[in-house]
């Protein structure tokens, strides 16, 4: 997919794509995340790992705007979005996939992706069917191609396998001109073959699109990421390259037996 405007935007903006400073989120007396400071450069591929309860999903929810952080700032491409509602962040190029796929069960794969493309474009009501060669229709087909679902293009979502649904979930996040994507456990429940496909899809994403991936499966995460942030009990515990993290003694102690959470 070649979206030159997004590429240009990505390379022009100096500084980080995503920057968190001192972000804390309390639920009552419980600190789900405390004093999280991290930065991700444009186009960087970061994995955030940690056991259940480490605060990874809360972190995501703060970044997308589903939660308001108790304290701290969040900057998206240099802009302070800490108090912005979710749809404003989407407009600035942020996308997200969900741990449990939120798909449109009564529609086909093609229709699902088409809706995603249409949504992030200007949404007028249109009571006219799109013509042949409509820009958004073509776009949707390209995205379906990018997630290896072309053969299931007209299948109903309810007829897809679980793995295919996860692929579709990713396609929805790729619609429009995403500059930064948050992948929430995309490999959950996938078979080894499907995991291989997932890794292929993620590594083949255009280089200007940065992403953060939450995963329990260390294998997948370490293969697609160029840097890793480990969280524990709501705090950042360690950062480094995949190789460094894999060999780290403390990490091994905490996560005996590797990737299963």
């Amino acid at each position, binding site marked *: 997919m070649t979206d030159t405007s997004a590429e240009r935007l990505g390379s022009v903006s100096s500084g980080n794509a995503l920057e968190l400073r001192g972000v804390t989120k309390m639920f009552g007396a419980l600190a789900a995340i405390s004093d999280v400071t991290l930065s991700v450069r444009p186009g960087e591929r970061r994995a955030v790992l940690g056991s259940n309860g480490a605060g990874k999903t809360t972190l995501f929810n703060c970044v997308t705007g589903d939660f308001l952080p108790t304290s701290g700032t969040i900057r998206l491409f240099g802009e302070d979005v800490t108090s912005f509602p979710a749809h404003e962040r989407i407009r600035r190029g942020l996308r997200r996939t969900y741990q449990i796929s939120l798909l*449109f069960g009564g*529609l086909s794969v093609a229709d699902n992706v088409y809706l995603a493309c249409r949504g992030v474009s200007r949404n007028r009501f249109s009571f*006219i069917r799109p013509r042949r060669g409509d820009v958004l229709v073509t776009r949707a087909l390209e995205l379906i191609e990018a997630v290896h679902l072309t053969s299931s293009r007209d299948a109903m979502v309810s007829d897809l396998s679980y793995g295919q649904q996860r692929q579709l979930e990713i396609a929805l996040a790729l619609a429009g001109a995403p500059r930064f994507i948050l992948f929430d456990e995309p490999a959950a429940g996938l078979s080894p073959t499907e995991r291989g496909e997932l890794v292929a899809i993620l590594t083949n994403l255009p280089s200007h699109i940065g992403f953060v991936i939450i995963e329990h499966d260390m294998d997948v995460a370490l293969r697609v990421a160029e840097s890793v942030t480990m969280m524990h009990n709501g705090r950042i515990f360690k950062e480094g390259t995949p190789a460094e993290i894999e060999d780290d003694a403390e990490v091994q102690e905490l996560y005996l037996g590797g990737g299963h959470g």
Partner: protein
Amino acid sequence: MAIEARPTAEKSWIEQVAPGWWAVGLILLAMPAFAGDFVLFQVFGWTFVLGMIALSLMFLAGYGGMVSLIQMTVGALGGYMVAILGTSGTALSLGLPWWLYIPAAILIASLFGTLVGALAVRTEGIYTIMITLAIASAFFYFTRQNYGIFNGYSGFNLVVPPQLFGIDWRQPVPFYYLTLVCAALSYAAVVYVARTPFGLALQGVRDNPRRMAALGFSVTAHRVAAYTFASVIAAVGGILLVWQNAQVSPGTAGIPQVIDILVIAVVGGLKRPIGPFIGALIYVLLRVFSPDVLLAFGLSGERFKLLIGMGFLLIVFFSPDGVLGLWEKWRARRAHAVDPLSGAVRDTAGGGRP
């Protein structure tokens, strides 16, 4: 189709329609040649009209995920407006010309439907039935008590279509064609709109409003607009119904009538636009012929309500997708039928899709 990228010869819509449909269309067009006045007016006319109103319910329920019981009321309001703004046997009518009162009636009824939608869509889906039923009931009681506008209990009589082009549109053959054309147009409109960006977005809202909102769509706006679209169809159907009966009264949109539309839509099937018309035909046949059947069994002819209720319960129990659902299941089983002679699995999928 919204998503079609074949660069070479693409089928025009004419070629896409399965042959069975052409046969049905021809039969419907030629019907007056072999059917009597009663069948044309009372059976088919009524079927098309009820089918239209049930179609508006099916649009909201099947494509929008909102089961609304206000459709019959919208139709009745359209009929009332035609009676009030046009001519009738009652002094209250204003006697405006037809090119004024017909569009005005449709407009007023659609506005009402939109307003009800605006009230109903801000709550969870399950409340929609309750809210729309309550408003429909309020309308019934209000029209029954109000004599200044709605002429209370008696309503308006002698409400007939205007004599356009020298034709009395309430005669069986003209009325048949009038209702056939209106029904066909509504059906085509629904089929078309279902695959426009608006229609797809509405289905998206049905399936996952949270994701639609996350994708940047206004969920409420789509739902309310769906009510507007459905209300236009219901309004036209209501006007035709009132012309057929030549009268409109609170009983036109009484609770039993409101429930009947839901029964028709569910029995026919809420998933495809042809469902409401199938349901309407079944309902009309039951209403017309069951008194004779009941009498044959020694029961009063009035017990047709019981038959309809029990039939409805059976459908909900065994085939919640209605008659269409039964048809789909039968076709699916036939498609994967095993040839009794050779034991081979015969795969004969296919067929039209409206």
